Protein backbone atom coordinates (compact mmCIF):
# COMPACT_ATOMS: atom_id res chain seq x y z
CA UNK A 1 0.00 0.00 0.00
CA UNK A 2 0.96 3.65 -0.44
CA UNK A 3 2.23 5.67 2.47
CA UNK A 4 -0.47 6.85 4.83
CA UNK A 5 -2.08 10.15 4.01
CA UNK A 6 -1.35 13.06 6.23
CA UNK A 7 -4.34 15.02 7.44
CA UNK A 8 -4.13 18.51 8.87
CA UNK A 9 -7.48 18.27 10.64
CA UNK A 10 -7.12 16.97 14.16
CA UNK A 11 -9.49 16.45 17.06
CA UNK A 12 -8.65 17.78 20.50
CA UNK A 13 -10.03 15.03 22.72
CA UNK A 14 -10.11 17.36 25.72
CA UNK A 15 -12.39 19.80 23.95
CA UNK A 16 -14.52 17.32 21.99
CA UNK A 17 -17.92 16.79 23.60
CA UNK A 18 -18.98 14.12 21.12
CA UNK A 19 -21.92 16.18 19.89
CA UNK A 20 -21.89 14.66 16.39
CA UNK A 21 -22.26 17.92 14.47
CA UNK A 22 -19.09 17.06 12.56
CA UNK A 23 -20.28 13.53 11.88
CA UNK A 24 -23.39 14.87 10.20
CA UNK A 25 -21.58 17.45 8.12
CA UNK A 26 -18.82 15.26 6.69
CA UNK A 27 -19.31 14.86 2.93
CA UNK A 28 -17.47 11.53 2.83
CA UNK A 29 -19.01 10.10 6.02
CA UNK A 30 -15.54 9.81 7.51
CA UNK A 31 -16.52 10.59 11.11
CA UNK A 32 -17.89 8.33 13.85
CA UNK A 33 -18.43 8.99 17.54
CA UNK A 34 -17.06 6.46 20.02
CA UNK A 35 -16.44 6.87 23.76
CA UNK A 36 -17.96 10.31 23.54
CA UNK A 37 -15.32 11.52 21.09
CA UNK A 38 -15.40 12.07 17.34
CA UNK A 39 -12.85 10.18 15.31
CA UNK A 40 -11.91 10.67 11.67
CA UNK A 41 -11.32 7.80 9.27
CA UNK A 42 -8.00 8.73 7.69
CA UNK A 43 -8.78 6.85 4.49
CA UNK A 44 -11.98 8.74 3.86
CA UNK A 45 -11.04 12.23 5.05
CA UNK A 46 -10.36 14.71 2.25
CA UNK A 47 -9.36 17.63 4.51
CA UNK A 48 -12.21 19.84 3.29
CA UNK A 49 -12.76 21.26 6.76
CA UNK A 50 -16.57 21.06 6.83
CA UNK A 51 -16.30 19.39 10.24
CA UNK A 52 -14.21 22.18 11.71
CA UNK A 53 -16.73 24.73 10.48
CA UNK A 54 -19.59 23.20 12.44
CA UNK A 55 -17.71 22.20 15.58
CA UNK A 56 -19.26 24.18 18.47
CA UNK A 57 -16.29 23.72 20.82
CA UNK A 58 -13.44 24.29 18.34
CA UNK A 59 -12.27 20.78 19.16
CA UNK A 60 -11.49 20.22 15.50
CA UNK A 61 -8.43 22.22 14.67
CA UNK A 62 -5.86 22.55 11.96
CA UNK A 63 -2.42 21.47 13.04
CA UNK A 64 0.29 24.04 12.29
CA UNK A 65 4.03 24.41 12.66
CA UNK A 66 5.41 26.57 15.46
CA UNK A 67 6.00 29.99 14.04
CA UNK A 68 9.55 29.92 15.35
CA UNK A 69 10.28 27.02 13.02
CA UNK A 70 10.94 29.60 10.36
CA UNK A 71 14.14 30.52 12.19
CA UNK A 72 15.59 27.10 11.46
CA UNK A 73 16.39 28.62 8.09
CA UNK A 74 18.77 31.42 7.31
CA UNK A 75 16.52 32.72 4.53
CA UNK A 76 12.83 32.74 5.27
CA UNK A 77 10.31 33.26 2.50
CA UNK A 78 6.66 34.04 3.22
CA UNK A 79 4.65 32.70 0.31
CA UNK A 80 1.39 34.59 0.49
CA UNK A 81 -1.82 34.03 -1.46
CA UNK A 82 -3.88 37.07 -2.40
CA UNK A 83 -6.70 36.10 -0.03
CA UNK A 84 -4.27 36.62 2.86
CA UNK A 85 -3.87 40.28 1.96
CA UNK A 86 -7.60 40.49 1.17
CA UNK A 87 -8.40 39.96 4.84
CA UNK A 88 -6.95 43.30 5.88
CA UNK A 89 -9.06 46.46 5.88
CA UNK A 90 -8.35 48.60 2.83
CA UNK A 91 -6.68 51.39 4.77
CA UNK A 92 -3.80 49.03 5.53
CA UNK A 93 -1.42 49.13 2.60
CA UNK A 94 0.15 46.01 1.15
CA UNK A 95 3.56 47.54 1.79
CA UNK A 96 2.68 47.85 5.48
CA UNK A 97 1.74 44.18 5.61
CA UNK A 98 4.94 43.17 3.83
CA UNK A 99 6.96 45.34 6.11
CA UNK A 100 5.52 43.71 9.20
CA UNK A 101 6.13 40.28 7.71
CA UNK A 102 9.80 41.23 7.47
CA UNK A 103 9.74 42.52 10.99
CA UNK A 104 8.30 39.24 12.20
CA UNK A 105 11.30 37.46 10.76
CA UNK A 106 10.75 36.78 7.08
CA UNK A 107 13.59 37.80 4.81
CA UNK A 108 11.53 37.59 1.61
CA UNK A 109 7.87 37.89 0.71
CA UNK A 110 6.57 36.40 -2.51
CA UNK A 111 3.04 36.30 -3.88
CA UNK A 112 1.70 32.88 -4.85
CA UNK A 113 -0.37 34.28 -7.69
CA UNK A 114 2.68 35.38 -9.64
CA UNK A 115 2.99 31.74 -10.71
CA UNK A 116 -0.27 32.11 -12.59
CA UNK A 117 1.68 33.94 -15.26
CA UNK A 118 3.25 30.67 -16.40
CA UNK A 119 0.44 28.41 -15.23
CA UNK A 120 -2.20 30.06 -17.40
CA UNK A 121 -0.20 29.36 -20.53
CA UNK A 122 0.40 25.82 -19.38
CA UNK A 123 -3.37 25.40 -19.00
CA UNK A 124 -3.87 26.59 -22.58
CA UNK A 125 -1.23 24.19 -23.88
CA UNK A 126 -2.74 21.39 -21.80
CA UNK A 127 -6.16 22.06 -23.27
CA UNK A 128 -4.73 22.09 -26.78
CA UNK A 129 -2.96 18.75 -26.37
CA UNK A 130 -5.68 17.05 -24.33
CA UNK A 131 -7.34 14.04 -25.97
CA UNK A 132 -9.13 12.29 -23.09
CA UNK A 133 -12.68 12.63 -21.73
CA UNK A 134 -14.19 16.04 -21.02
CA UNK A 135 -14.49 18.13 -18.98
CA UNK A 136 -10.95 18.64 -17.79
CA UNK A 137 -11.24 19.10 -14.04
CA UNK A 138 -8.93 21.62 -12.44
CA UNK A 139 -6.29 20.35 -10.02
CA UNK A 140 -6.22 23.64 -8.12
CA UNK A 141 -8.17 22.65 -5.01
CA UNK A 142 -6.48 19.80 -3.11
CA UNK A 143 -9.69 18.87 -1.28
CA UNK A 144 -11.38 18.35 -4.65
CA UNK A 145 -8.45 16.25 -5.90
CA UNK A 146 -8.78 14.07 -2.79
CA UNK A 147 -12.55 13.96 -3.14
CA UNK A 148 -12.18 12.61 -6.67
CA UNK A 149 -9.58 10.07 -5.55
CA UNK A 150 -11.81 8.57 -2.86
CA UNK A 151 -15.33 9.14 -4.14
CA UNK A 152 -15.09 9.51 -7.92
CA UNK A 153 -12.20 7.19 -8.80
CA UNK A 154 -13.23 6.92 -12.45
CA UNK A 155 -12.58 10.64 -12.87
CA UNK A 156 -8.93 10.74 -11.75
CA UNK A 157 -7.68 10.81 -15.34
CA UNK A 158 -9.77 13.90 -16.01
CA UNK A 159 -7.99 15.90 -13.32
CA UNK A 160 -5.75 18.41 -15.06
CA UNK A 161 -2.20 17.17 -14.56
CA UNK A 162 -0.81 20.60 -13.80
CA UNK A 163 0.66 21.76 -10.54
CA UNK A 164 -0.79 24.40 -8.23
CA UNK A 165 0.31 28.06 -8.18
CA UNK A 166 1.73 27.68 -4.67
CA UNK A 167 4.09 24.85 -5.57
CA UNK A 168 5.14 26.47 -8.83
CA UNK A 169 5.78 29.74 -7.01
CA UNK A 170 7.82 27.98 -4.34
CA UNK A 171 9.85 26.10 -6.95
CA UNK A 172 10.55 29.29 -8.84
CA UNK A 173 11.49 31.33 -5.81
CA UNK A 174 13.80 28.67 -4.44
CA UNK A 175 15.55 28.46 -7.79
CA UNK A 176 15.79 32.23 -8.05
CA UNK A 177 17.42 32.45 -4.64
CA UNK A 178 19.85 29.62 -5.27
CA UNK A 179 20.79 31.29 -8.56
CA UNK A 180 21.64 34.33 -6.49
CA UNK A 181 24.09 32.14 -4.61
CA UNK A 182 22.05 31.20 -1.54
CA UNK A 183 22.35 27.63 -0.31
CA UNK A 184 19.26 25.49 -0.96
CA UNK A 185 19.19 24.00 2.53
CA UNK A 186 19.28 27.45 4.07
CA UNK A 187 16.10 28.52 2.32
CA UNK A 188 12.78 27.93 4.08
CA UNK A 189 9.64 28.67 2.10
CA UNK A 190 6.52 29.00 4.21
CA UNK A 191 3.12 28.95 2.61
CA UNK A 192 0.46 30.98 4.37
CA UNK A 193 -2.53 28.69 4.03
CA UNK A 194 -6.22 29.57 4.02
CA UNK A 195 -7.28 25.92 4.43
CA UNK A 196 -6.45 22.49 5.79
CA UNK A 197 -6.39 20.76 2.43
CA UNK A 198 -3.42 22.83 1.28
CA UNK A 199 -1.43 21.65 4.27
CA UNK A 200 -2.26 18.04 3.55
CA UNK A 201 -1.27 18.53 -0.09
CA UNK A 202 2.09 19.95 0.93
CA UNK A 203 2.88 17.19 3.40
CA UNK A 204 1.34 14.36 1.34
CA UNK A 205 1.46 15.70 -2.21
CA UNK A 206 -0.34 14.04 -5.10
CA UNK A 207 1.26 13.82 -8.55
CA UNK A 208 4.67 15.09 -7.39
CA UNK A 209 7.33 13.49 -5.19
CA UNK A 210 7.84 16.28 -2.72
CA UNK A 211 6.52 19.80 -2.31
CA UNK A 212 8.86 22.75 -2.82
CA UNK A 213 7.30 24.35 0.24
CA UNK A 214 9.20 23.80 3.51
CA UNK A 215 6.43 24.60 5.97
CA UNK A 216 2.98 25.98 6.45
CA UNK A 217 1.63 28.81 8.55
CA UNK A 218 -2.09 29.17 9.13
CA UNK A 219 -3.56 32.30 7.66
CA UNK A 220 -5.55 33.27 10.75
CA UNK A 221 -2.66 33.04 13.17
CA UNK A 222 -0.35 35.07 10.95
CA UNK A 223 -3.13 37.56 10.29
CA UNK A 224 -3.43 38.12 14.03
CA UNK A 225 0.30 38.64 14.43
CA UNK A 226 0.50 41.07 11.55
CA UNK A 227 -2.66 42.95 12.43
CA UNK A 228 -1.54 43.33 16.04
CA UNK A 229 1.78 44.81 14.92
CA UNK A 230 0.07 47.24 12.60
CA UNK A 231 -2.41 48.28 15.29
CA UNK A 232 0.37 48.80 17.82
CA UNK A 233 2.13 51.06 15.33
CA UNK A 234 5.49 50.55 16.91
CA UNK A 235 6.87 52.89 14.32
CA UNK A 236 9.94 51.34 12.79
CA UNK A 237 8.47 50.07 9.55
CA UNK A 238 11.14 48.07 7.72
CA UNK A 239 12.02 48.91 4.19
CA UNK A 240 10.76 46.40 1.68
CA UNK A 241 11.64 46.15 -1.98
CA UNK A 242 9.31 48.05 -4.29
CA UNK A 243 6.54 45.59 -5.16
CA UNK A 244 5.98 44.80 -8.80
CA UNK A 245 2.54 44.85 -10.32
CA UNK A 246 0.42 41.72 -10.43
CA UNK A 247 -2.28 41.49 -13.06
CA UNK A 248 -5.91 41.20 -11.97
CA UNK A 249 -6.45 37.80 -13.54
CA UNK A 250 -3.67 36.39 -11.41
CA UNK A 251 -4.83 37.92 -8.15
CA UNK A 252 -8.34 36.61 -8.76
CA UNK A 253 -7.18 33.09 -9.73
CA UNK A 254 -8.11 31.55 -6.37
CA UNK A 255 -11.57 33.13 -6.26
CA UNK A 256 -14.71 31.91 -8.02
CA UNK A 257 -14.28 31.80 -11.80
CA UNK A 258 -10.61 32.72 -11.44
CA UNK A 259 -9.54 29.78 -13.57
CA UNK A 260 -12.69 29.18 -15.60
CA UNK A 261 -12.66 32.71 -16.98
CA UNK A 262 -9.13 32.16 -18.26
CA UNK A 263 -9.41 28.64 -19.62
CA UNK A 264 -10.44 28.15 -23.24
CA UNK A 265 -13.75 26.84 -24.55
CA UNK A 266 -16.91 26.34 -22.55
CA UNK A 267 -16.06 26.48 -18.89
CA UNK A 268 -17.91 26.16 -15.64
CA UNK A 269 -17.01 27.12 -12.08
CA UNK A 270 -18.35 25.33 -9.04
CA UNK A 271 -17.73 26.18 -5.41
CA UNK A 272 -18.84 24.42 -2.24
CA UNK A 273 -18.16 20.78 -1.48
CA UNK A 274 -21.77 19.62 -1.78
CA UNK A 275 -22.22 21.45 -5.08
CA UNK A 276 -19.03 19.80 -6.27
CA UNK A 277 -20.23 16.32 -5.26
CA UNK A 278 -23.58 16.82 -6.97
CA UNK A 279 -21.91 17.92 -10.17
CA UNK A 280 -19.16 15.31 -10.19
CA UNK A 281 -21.83 12.60 -9.86
CA UNK A 282 -23.26 13.90 -13.11
CA UNK A 283 -19.88 14.14 -14.78
CA UNK A 284 -19.18 10.56 -13.78
CA UNK A 285 -22.46 9.43 -15.37
CA UNK A 286 -21.53 11.41 -18.48
CA UNK A 287 -24.74 13.35 -18.09
CA UNK A 288 -22.76 16.54 -18.65
CA UNK A 289 -21.82 17.26 -22.24
CA UNK A 290 -20.18 20.18 -23.97
CA UNK A 291 -18.18 21.50 -21.01
CA UNK A 292 -14.44 21.73 -21.72
CA UNK A 293 -13.07 22.90 -18.41
CA UNK A 294 -14.41 22.56 -14.90
CA UNK A 295 -13.17 24.72 -12.07
CA UNK A 296 -14.13 23.05 -8.83
CA UNK A 297 -13.42 24.30 -5.32
CA UNK A 298 -14.38 22.74 -2.01
CA UNK A 299 -15.02 25.97 -0.15
CA UNK A 300 -17.96 28.23 -0.78
CA UNK A 301 -16.48 31.32 -2.49
CA UNK A 302 -13.33 29.30 -3.20
CA UNK A 303 -10.21 30.25 -1.25
CA UNK A 304 -11.87 33.33 0.25
CA UNK A 305 -14.00 30.82 2.13
CA UNK A 306 -11.04 28.84 3.48
CA UNK A 307 -11.60 27.85 7.11
CA UNK A 308 -8.33 29.45 8.20
CA UNK A 309 -9.15 32.92 6.98
CA UNK A 310 -9.75 35.34 9.80
CA UNK A 311 -12.19 37.47 7.86
CA UNK A 312 -15.58 36.85 6.25
CA UNK A 313 -15.35 35.39 2.72
CA UNK A 314 -17.45 38.07 1.07
CA UNK A 315 -15.54 40.86 2.74
CA UNK A 316 -12.26 39.33 1.61
CA UNK A 317 -13.45 39.33 -1.98
CA UNK A 318 -14.76 42.87 -1.76
CA UNK A 319 -11.56 44.16 -0.19
CA UNK A 320 -9.35 42.36 -2.63
CA UNK A 321 -11.23 43.81 -5.58
CA UNK A 322 -11.00 47.27 -4.07
CA UNK A 323 -7.25 46.85 -3.71
CA UNK A 324 -6.96 45.78 -7.31
CA UNK A 325 -8.95 48.80 -8.47
CA UNK A 326 -6.73 51.09 -6.47
CA UNK A 327 -3.57 49.52 -7.84
CA UNK A 328 -4.86 49.84 -11.37
CA UNK A 329 -5.22 53.57 -10.91
CA UNK A 330 -1.77 53.93 -9.43
CA UNK A 331 0.50 51.98 -11.72
CA UNK A 332 0.40 51.56 -15.42
CA UNK A 333 3.70 49.92 -16.30
CA UNK A 334 3.94 46.24 -15.68
CA UNK A 335 7.11 44.72 -14.35
CA UNK A 336 7.38 40.95 -14.12
CA UNK A 337 8.78 39.25 -11.04
CA UNK A 338 11.07 37.34 -13.37
CA UNK A 339 9.18 34.07 -13.31
CA UNK A 340 8.76 34.16 -17.09
CA UNK A 341 12.52 33.85 -17.56
CA UNK A 342 12.32 30.56 -15.67
CA UNK A 343 9.55 29.15 -17.83
CA UNK A 344 11.72 26.40 -19.31
CA UNK A 345 13.09 25.44 -15.93
CA UNK A 346 9.57 25.28 -14.52
CA UNK A 347 8.12 23.35 -17.46
CA UNK A 348 8.81 19.93 -15.98
CA UNK A 349 7.69 21.01 -12.51
CA UNK A 350 4.37 22.31 -13.76
CA UNK A 351 3.40 18.85 -15.06
CA UNK A 352 1.94 16.44 -12.56
CA UNK A 353 2.41 12.70 -12.65
CA UNK A 354 -0.39 10.18 -12.35
CA UNK A 355 -3.03 10.73 -9.72
CA UNK A 356 -4.03 7.32 -8.36
CA UNK A 357 -7.59 6.52 -7.38
CA UNK A 358 -8.01 5.18 -3.86
CA UNK A 359 -11.67 4.36 -3.68
CA UNK A 360 -12.92 4.17 -0.13
CA UNK A 361 -16.46 3.24 -0.95
CA UNK A 362 -15.89 -0.51 -1.20
CA UNK A 363 -17.16 -2.93 1.42
CA UNK A 364 -14.37 -5.39 0.71
CA UNK A 365 -11.51 -5.60 -1.76
CA UNK A 366 -12.65 -9.12 -2.67
CA UNK A 367 -15.77 -8.82 -4.80
CA UNK A 368 -17.46 -12.01 -3.64
CA UNK A 369 -17.00 -10.96 -0.04
CA UNK A 370 -18.16 -7.46 -0.90
CA UNK A 371 -21.32 -8.91 -2.44
CA UNK A 372 -21.97 -10.96 0.66
CA UNK A 373 -21.44 -7.92 2.85
CA UNK A 374 -23.72 -5.86 0.67
CA UNK A 375 -26.48 -8.44 0.95
CA UNK A 376 -26.07 -8.51 4.71
CA UNK A 377 -25.97 -4.76 5.05
CA UNK A 378 -29.14 -4.42 3.00
CA UNK A 379 -30.84 -6.93 5.27
CA UNK A 380 -29.66 -5.03 8.33
CA UNK A 381 -30.75 -1.74 6.86
CA UNK A 382 -34.28 -3.06 6.61
CA UNK A 383 -34.31 -3.67 10.36
CA UNK A 384 -33.08 -0.17 11.13
CA UNK A 385 -35.54 2.72 11.55
CA UNK A 386 -34.06 4.72 8.66
CA UNK A 387 -34.46 8.01 10.47
CA UNK A 388 -30.70 8.67 10.52
CA UNK A 389 -30.81 9.94 14.10
CA UNK A 390 -27.10 9.36 14.60
CA UNK A 391 -27.58 7.98 18.12
CA UNK A 392 -25.53 4.93 17.13
CA UNK A 393 -22.50 7.14 16.51
CA UNK A 394 -22.73 6.73 12.72
CA UNK A 395 -24.10 9.39 10.38
CA UNK A 396 -26.95 7.29 8.93
CA UNK A 397 -28.71 3.96 9.25
CA UNK A 398 -27.04 2.91 6.02
CA UNK A 399 -23.62 3.84 7.40
CA UNK A 400 -24.32 1.83 10.56
CA UNK A 401 -25.39 -1.17 8.49
CA UNK A 402 -22.13 -0.99 6.58
CA UNK A 403 -20.12 -0.51 9.75
CA UNK A 404 -21.75 -3.65 11.13
CA UNK A 405 -20.88 -5.83 8.14
CA UNK A 406 -17.35 -4.46 8.18
CA UNK A 407 -17.15 -5.55 11.82
CA UNK A 408 -16.86 -2.03 13.23
CA UNK A 409 -20.20 -1.91 15.04
CA UNK A 410 -23.04 -4.14 16.21
CA UNK A 411 -26.78 -4.02 15.67
CA UNK A 412 -27.30 -3.18 19.34
CA UNK A 413 -25.72 0.23 18.73
CA UNK A 414 -29.10 1.27 17.37
CA UNK A 415 -31.29 2.55 20.21
CA UNK A 416 -34.44 1.34 18.47
CA UNK A 417 -33.02 -2.16 18.22
CA UNK A 418 -31.98 -1.90 21.87
CA UNK A 419 -35.58 -1.36 22.92
CA UNK A 420 -36.59 -4.43 20.98
CA UNK A 421 -33.81 -6.48 22.54
CA UNK A 422 -34.85 -5.35 26.01
CA UNK A 423 -38.47 -6.25 25.37
CA UNK A 424 -37.45 -9.70 24.16
CA UNK A 425 -35.27 -10.09 27.26
CA UNK A 426 -32.18 -10.48 25.09
CA UNK A 427 -30.36 -7.70 26.93
CA UNK A 428 -31.18 -5.85 30.14
CA UNK A 429 -31.33 -2.10 30.77
CA UNK A 430 -27.84 -1.99 32.25
CA UNK A 431 -26.35 -3.53 29.13
CA UNK A 432 -28.28 -1.03 26.99
CA UNK A 433 -27.01 1.89 29.07
CA UNK A 434 -23.52 0.42 28.85
CA UNK A 435 -23.74 0.49 25.05
CA UNK A 436 -24.89 4.10 25.07
CA UNK A 437 -21.97 4.98 27.34
CA UNK A 438 -19.58 3.18 25.03
CA UNK A 439 -20.73 5.34 22.18
CA UNK A 440 -21.37 8.67 23.84
CA UNK A 441 -19.12 8.48 26.88
CA UNK A 442 -19.97 8.73 30.58
CA UNK A 443 -21.30 12.23 30.18
CA UNK A 444 -24.21 10.93 28.13
CA UNK A 445 -26.00 8.85 30.77
CA UNK A 446 -25.61 10.38 34.18
Amino acid at each position, binding site marked *: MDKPFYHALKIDEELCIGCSHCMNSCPTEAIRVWNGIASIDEDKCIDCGECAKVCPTTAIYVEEDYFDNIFKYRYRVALIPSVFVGQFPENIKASQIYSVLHKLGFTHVYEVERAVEVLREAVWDYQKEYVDEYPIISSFCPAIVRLIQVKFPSLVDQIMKLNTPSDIAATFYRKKLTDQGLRDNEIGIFYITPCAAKIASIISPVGIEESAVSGVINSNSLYNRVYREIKNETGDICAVPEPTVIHDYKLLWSLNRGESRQAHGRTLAIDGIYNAIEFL*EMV*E*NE*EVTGIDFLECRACSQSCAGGILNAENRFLIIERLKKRIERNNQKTSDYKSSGIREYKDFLASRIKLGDIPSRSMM*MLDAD*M*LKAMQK*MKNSQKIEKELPSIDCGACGAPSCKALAEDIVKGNATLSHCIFIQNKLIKNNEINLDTALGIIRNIWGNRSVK
Partner: protein
Amino acid sequence: MEFEYKVEGGDFTNAGSASSSVKKTLKKLNVDPKITRKIVVALYEAEVNIVAHAYRGDILVKISPEQINITLTDEGPGIENIEQAMVEGYSTASAKVREMGFGAGMGLANIKKNTDQMNIQSEVGKGTVLSFTNFLS
Protein backbone atom coordinates in the same frame (compact mmCIF):
# COMPACT_ATOMS: atom_id res chain seq x y z
CA MET B 1 -26.97 -10.51 -6.99
CA GLU B 2 -29.87 -8.82 -8.69
CA PHE B 3 -31.45 -5.41 -8.63
CA GLU B 4 -34.60 -4.17 -10.27
CA TYR B 5 -35.65 -0.68 -11.26
CA LYS B 6 -38.66 0.84 -12.97
CA VAL B 7 -38.62 3.60 -15.59
CA GLU B 8 -41.53 5.82 -16.63
CA GLY B 9 -41.74 7.18 -20.17
CA GLY B 10 -41.52 10.97 -20.35
CA ASP B 11 -40.12 11.31 -16.83
CA PHE B 12 -36.87 13.09 -17.67
CA THR B 13 -36.31 14.35 -14.13
CA ASN B 14 -35.79 10.81 -12.89
CA ALA B 15 -33.84 9.50 -15.85
CA GLY B 16 -30.48 8.43 -14.48
CA SER B 17 -31.69 7.25 -11.09
CA ALA B 18 -31.06 3.59 -11.92
CA SER B 19 -27.59 4.30 -13.28
CA SER B 20 -26.72 6.38 -10.21
CA SER B 21 -27.87 3.61 -7.93
CA VAL B 22 -25.96 0.95 -9.89
CA LYS B 23 -22.88 3.15 -9.76
CA LYS B 24 -23.02 3.30 -5.96
CA THR B 25 -23.42 -0.46 -5.80
CA LEU B 26 -20.46 -1.13 -8.10
CA LYS B 27 -18.25 1.20 -6.07
CA LYS B 28 -19.13 -0.72 -2.93
CA LEU B 29 -18.29 -3.96 -4.70
CA ASN B 30 -14.84 -2.63 -5.65
CA VAL B 31 -15.45 -3.00 -9.38
CA ASP B 32 -12.71 -1.36 -11.45
CA PRO B 33 -13.65 2.35 -11.77
CA LYS B 34 -13.08 2.28 -15.53
CA ILE B 35 -15.50 -0.59 -16.02
CA THR B 36 -17.98 0.94 -13.60
CA ARG B 37 -17.98 4.09 -15.61
CA LYS B 38 -18.65 2.26 -18.87
CA ILE B 39 -21.56 0.38 -17.37
CA VAL B 40 -23.03 3.52 -15.85
CA VAL B 41 -22.76 5.42 -19.13
CA ALA B 42 -24.39 2.57 -21.07
CA LEU B 43 -27.17 2.20 -18.53
CA TYR B 44 -27.83 5.93 -18.46
CA GLU B 45 -28.24 6.02 -22.24
CA ALA B 46 -30.54 3.01 -22.14
CA GLU B 47 -32.63 4.56 -19.36
CA VAL B 48 -32.99 7.79 -21.28
CA ASN B 49 -34.07 5.87 -24.36
CA ILE B 50 -37.00 4.38 -22.47
CA VAL B 51 -37.89 7.80 -21.07
CA ALA B 52 -37.59 9.47 -24.47
CA HIS B 53 -38.99 6.82 -26.79
CA ALA B 54 -41.11 4.32 -24.83
CA TYR B 55 -43.99 4.29 -22.33
CA ARG B 56 -42.54 2.38 -19.41
CA GLY B 57 -39.88 -0.17 -18.70
CA ASP B 58 -38.18 -2.50 -16.23
CA ILE B 59 -34.47 -2.80 -15.61
CA LEU B 60 -32.85 -5.94 -14.31
CA VAL B 61 -29.24 -5.77 -13.18
CA LYS B 62 -27.38 -9.01 -12.53
CA ILE B 63 -23.96 -8.86 -10.92
CA SER B 64 -21.48 -11.67 -10.44
CA PRO B 65 -17.72 -11.54 -9.90
CA GLU B 66 -17.27 -12.42 -13.58
CA GLN B 67 -19.71 -10.09 -15.28
CA ILE B 68 -22.48 -7.58 -15.09
CA ASN B 69 -25.52 -8.09 -17.22
CA ILE B 70 -28.27 -5.53 -17.58
CA THR B 71 -31.58 -6.07 -19.34
CA LEU B 72 -34.05 -3.29 -20.06
CA THR B 73 -37.50 -4.37 -21.16
CA ASP B 74 -39.92 -1.70 -22.25
CA GLU B 75 -43.46 -1.27 -23.45
CA GLY B 76 -43.36 1.15 -26.32
CA PRO B 77 -43.43 1.70 -30.04
CA GLY B 78 -40.51 -0.66 -30.65
CA ILE B 79 -37.76 -0.09 -33.20
CA GLU B 80 -38.53 -0.80 -36.83
CA ASN B 81 -35.04 -0.95 -38.18
CA ILE B 82 -32.49 -1.76 -35.47
CA GLU B 83 -29.52 -1.50 -37.79
CA GLN B 84 -30.53 2.00 -38.74
CA ALA B 85 -31.21 2.96 -35.11
CA MET B 86 -27.67 1.90 -34.23
CA VAL B 87 -26.16 4.34 -36.73
CA GLU B 88 -24.53 7.34 -35.06
CA GLY B 89 -26.66 10.41 -35.61
CA TYR B 90 -29.86 8.59 -36.50
CA SER B 91 -32.71 9.76 -34.29
CA THR B 92 -36.48 9.95 -34.35
CA ALA B 93 -36.54 12.06 -31.18
CA SER B 94 -39.39 14.56 -31.06
CA ALA B 95 -38.78 18.29 -31.00
CA LYS B 96 -39.67 18.27 -27.32
CA VAL B 97 -37.06 15.62 -26.53
CA ARG B 98 -34.46 17.55 -28.51
CA GLU B 99 -35.29 20.65 -26.55
CA MET B 100 -34.29 18.75 -23.43
CA GLY B 101 -30.85 18.19 -24.88
CA PHE B 102 -31.35 14.62 -26.07
CA GLY B 103 -31.82 13.24 -29.55
CA ALA B 104 -28.35 13.44 -31.05
CA GLY B 105 -28.74 9.84 -32.14
CA MET B 106 -25.67 8.78 -30.21
CA GLY B 107 -27.23 6.69 -27.45
CA LEU B 108 -27.24 3.21 -28.91
CA ALA B 109 -23.82 3.68 -30.49
CA ASN B 110 -22.55 4.82 -27.11
CA ILE B 111 -23.98 1.74 -25.43
CA LYS B 112 -22.28 -0.47 -27.99
CA LYS B 113 -18.99 1.32 -27.44
CA ASN B 114 -19.12 0.92 -23.67
CA THR B 115 -20.16 -2.71 -23.40
CA ASP B 116 -18.61 -6.07 -24.27
CA GLN B 117 -21.83 -7.61 -25.57
CA MET B 118 -25.03 -5.97 -26.66
CA ASN B 119 -28.28 -7.32 -27.99
CA ILE B 120 -31.52 -5.61 -29.03
CA GLN B 121 -34.79 -7.30 -29.79
CA SER B 122 -37.80 -5.28 -30.69
CA GLU B 123 -41.37 -5.75 -31.81
CA VAL B 124 -43.03 -2.78 -33.44
CA GLY B 125 -46.07 -1.67 -31.48
CA LYS B 126 -45.12 -3.74 -28.44
CA GLY B 127 -41.73 -2.87 -27.11
CA THR B 128 -38.00 -3.38 -26.97
CA VAL B 129 -35.62 -5.57 -25.00
CA LEU B 130 -32.09 -4.28 -24.74
CA SER B 131 -29.51 -6.36 -22.98
CA PHE B 132 -25.81 -5.78 -22.47
CA THR B 133 -22.93 -7.34 -20.61
CA ASN B 134 -19.58 -6.18 -19.32
CA PHE B 135 -16.95 -8.63 -18.19
CA LEU B 136 -15.15 -7.82 -14.99
CA SER B 137 -11.90 -9.66 -15.45
